[in-house]
């Protein structure tokens, strides 16, 4: 599959997805670590992609997203932002409700389908 198609598929199939360096449990970058920590504090499951293991995504996603750096948080098919934005939203109390609303929305959708 083309890298761009793979990215689009990941973003559409995962309502909450974090593109980061390393993994939430073993991050390889301070910015990714802070972003993953904030996401884990929200108490909902989220998908992640380690871009150090996926050099093609690392090259293509910044162009597609028009966003030059990692981490990148995508919620409901939309780029929310990088580490600074994630942390600012978390500190303002805006991140958790957004994550919870998104998780609830897709849980409901799944239930209706099955």
């Amino acid at each position, binding site marked *: 599959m083309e890298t761009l198609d793979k990215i689009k598929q990941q973003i559409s199939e995962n309502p909450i997805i974090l593109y980061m*360096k*390393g993994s939430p449990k073993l991050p390889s970058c301070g*910015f990714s*670590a802070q972003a993953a920590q904030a996401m884990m504090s929200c108490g909902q499951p989220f998908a992640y992609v380690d871009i150090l293991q996926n050099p093609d995504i690392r090259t293509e996603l910044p162009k597609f997203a028009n966003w*030059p750096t990692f981490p990148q948080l995508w919620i409901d098919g939309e*780029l929310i932002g990088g580490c600074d934005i994630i942390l*600012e939203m978390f500190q303002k109390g805006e991140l958790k409700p957004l994550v919870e609303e998104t998780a609830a929305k897709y849980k409901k959708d799944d239930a209706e389908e099955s």
Partner: protein
Amino acid sequence: MSTEQTIYQKLKNTFSPHVLDVINESRMHGTAREDSHFKVVIVADAFESLKLIARHRAINNCLADELSGPVHALSINAYTADEWAKAEGVVPKSPACLGGSKNEQK
């Protein structure tokens, strides 16, 4: 002109900020170049009514040449004058380096 000065001048010209601080944090990142990691604190009227992502995009666009060149990480704290007054000048600290660039294949 150093990368730090270039970033400062470009942001100053584009946003006419009330407060502008460009901090070179490259030394926090052992293996990186001397002009690789920066933090920007900027307070400008241009950010009124812009969501966070739009503010960051405007700054990223302004510094596109630097971001596709030597600058590897750019931490942005962008505020309006009101938000800055409420924050009382307290800016979040940048994270410690975890050595990610050591493991990167270029």
